[in-house]
């Protein structure tokens, strides 16, 4: 068991029983991940010529969407308050101009993703106290195991040699590492930004407060004049 799996196995059940909101958030994240995965495969499907491969991927998309529904439904059942879906951020695996190589890279990335998520779901399933949740994780894990093998088969079809296959897998591992590194930087960046913005808030806000309140409390007439000025200056700049 790697350290990540140890954390999931022993700390997640405690964290989830202490903070039920955390569990809902995690389930929602899994739903987003599964739906995101479906969309990525769907995009690959739309750019593939072989009809039989398309049919195979179509089934794969259906399964990923269904997993998304399963996690979302459990999250909704457990949610006591208003439930707002947070928008998922999809980092497209495929560039705008799609070719054989970009499809191969995408499938390598998807294959590795299926492998990781399969292991994660098994551990989460074993750690879950709720029967329903355990069932959902095990169902998803069983399907993901099949996906792991099927995406490997597809990837092999896209590779003309053993070396190309290995290269694609290594490239996908590096891409995953790079993405994780960027995500980490993003978190650090956000923390720094929060500190800077908090300082701005406490230093600048008291100074600007009066003028901002005045702007907010302007009457319709004053706001109309400002708006007319904006429109006039825009029109003047174009003419």
């Amino acid at each position: 068991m790697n350290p990540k799996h140890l954390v999931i196995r022993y700390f997640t059940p405690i964290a989830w029983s202490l903070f039920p909101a955390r569990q809902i958030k995690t389930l929602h994240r899994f739903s987003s991940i599964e739906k995101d995965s479906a969309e990525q495969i769907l995009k690959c499907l739309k750019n593939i010529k072989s009809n039989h491969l398309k049919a195979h991927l179509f089934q794969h998309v259906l399964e990923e969407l269904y997993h998304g529904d399963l996690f979302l439904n459990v999250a909704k059942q457990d949610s006591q308050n208003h439930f707002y879906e947070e928008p998922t951020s999809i980092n497209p695996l495929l560039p705008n101009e799609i070719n054989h190589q970009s499809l191969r890279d995408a499938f390598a990335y998807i294959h590795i993703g299926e492998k990781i998520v399969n292991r994660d779901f098994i551990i989460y399933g074993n750690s879950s106290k709720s029967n329903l949740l355990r069932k959902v994780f095990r169902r998803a894990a069983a399907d993901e195991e099949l996906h792991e093998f099927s995406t490997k088969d597809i990837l092999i079809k896209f590779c003309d040699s053993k070396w190309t296959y290995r290269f694609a897998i290594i490239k996908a591992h590096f891409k995953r590492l790079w993405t994780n590194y960027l995500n980490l930087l993003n978190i650090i960046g956000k923390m720094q930004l929060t500190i800077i913005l908090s300082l701005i808030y406490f230093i600048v806000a008291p100074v600007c407060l009066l003028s901002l309140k005045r702007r907010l409390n302007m009457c319709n007439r004053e706001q109309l004049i400002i708006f007319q000025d904006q429109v006039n200056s825009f029109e003047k700049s174009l003419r």
Partner: protein
Amino acid sequence: MKILGISSGYHDATAALIINGKPVASSAEERFTRKKHDPSFPINAIFDCLSQANLNGDDLNYVVFHERPFTKVTRSLSSSISDFPKSLDTFLNLSKDAIQTFWIRQNIRKHIKIAPEKILFVPHHMSHASHAFITSPHKKAVVVTIDAVGEWISSGIFLADRTRDQIKIQPLDITPFPHSLGLFYSAMTSFLGFKVNDGECSTMALAAFGRPIYVDTLKKILQIMPDGSYALDTSWFTFKDVARAPVTKKFLDSLGNPRSCKHEFLFDPLNVKTPISAEDQKYADIACSTQHILQEAIISYMARAKNLSKEVNLCYSGGAALNCVANSVLLNKQLFNSIYIPPDPGDGGGAMGAALYVDSLMSKNREIFDIRPNLGTHIDEASFKELATVLDPAQWHRFSSTQTPALKKTDLMVTTFSSDALLLEWLAKQLFCGRIVGWCQGRAENGPRALGYRSILLRPDDVELSRRLSKKIKLRAPFRPYAVALTQNEAIKSLEHQDSASLSRWMQFSYKVSKSAESKLCAALHIDKTTRAQCVFPEDNPAFHNLLVSYGKLSGCEALLNTSFNESGFPLVNDSTDALLMFARTDLDILIIGNTVLEKRLDKKNESYKDNCFNIERPLHRF
């Protein structure tokens, strides 16, 4: 002159392409990313618009954004700082969004090779006003825009004129933030347990089940002035984050706790005998009072617009123009000789409006054109046929959340009809037999409503069928009614408004159904015996019109229940694969793309029609 309009950053990001003053393409980003109301930069929509016109980014004269990001940011930050020092979290959230907005010019240049000075930013309400007026048939009109908020403004009155060589749109009056009808309605929507920027239609639908007994309380919140303007008492709301906690303690003390979104309403327009709890009735009453006061505010604001402009024609846009019940009340008041609402009056339409506005400033003597509601992606029948023939439905039922029946490979049949006439005749029979059909033809709608290009169709007189649609296809709350598409002849016969046929091309109004037609349209009727009708004209959508006529020959009623071709939580389907996915995941019986039909040939035990639909002769070949 080739101008690309873009709207993004809040909800319904859209791109629209204008060539020589006419819109040639428009798509929402959600159709490509399949994330409903996707606010992200519409890169897929942009490429789709350009490819439809065979253009590259270099060919564009201007790229126009639908609002001024800097002005918007100053408003967001001002409103958050005004509560200093209690608003740090709001300030942080808004600042992070604002930082992203600042890079919009760089974002555009990253994808489109265009000089920075060719990227323009149009005030939000000018985008809406231009969209409403320039796409209208009027030479002179008053334009009213009512929105949640755009930069510092929430609604505006404009005088628009194209009687000279150039179009002139002049602001006459505005309502500044935070006094906003859109924000008021969204906040109430959130209080009622629906999602903001998505569930407003649920508030409108729920209103029909309630009584306006909270109007006096709500009038303390939304004050309507004698001159037609309005003001919000902001002590009842916290508008910094409408989606999460929009109401204050004062509000809760008066109207009680917000509804939990887990709790499902049992209201059903198709079954009035369902027992309703006192708590549910209270929320319906609040929804009704909200709708009531919104209508009152809109009517008085429109009267103000008429007084200020002295015009008899109205062009109307902004998010509030999607409220078809309020639109109908406005129509019945007969304040104006004519009312024009574009097919996509919300923020999505702002992209087209911004581009049209810049075009109107750069060009002279532009002719009035007839706007098409379907400027989206063209559906590919050939790829659909190829994929449909190799699909194996054996596992579909295992991965469907709607308990669809198990299918064998032989239960799925693909056929291509040799002519439109044969297809329509066959399809009319299938619909008459009670089958539910996914219908995709030509280019997709560019607004939120299905207008016969990406629609689910079924007979409008079968309540059980519409229940099946709600439960096994759309996963939709039973209190939300469906819309109806009908021919002009049928509209004259069935709807109680003399101009209903000419007014309802794009489902902007709801109409009272005449007593004699109630049984014919019962599955698409709301509790108040109204329906959101779309009148289909042969020149607008010939295939759909002919289908209605063919169905009318069998049933005696040239009308079909018409709802958007999408699953719950997803946007309208865009291409054939999206349509196939929905066909596989739900209990749809037939999928039609162009002249190709994919059919589930399953003998349902619960089928209420005894006719054997499968015995209908098909003069075609099977794959």
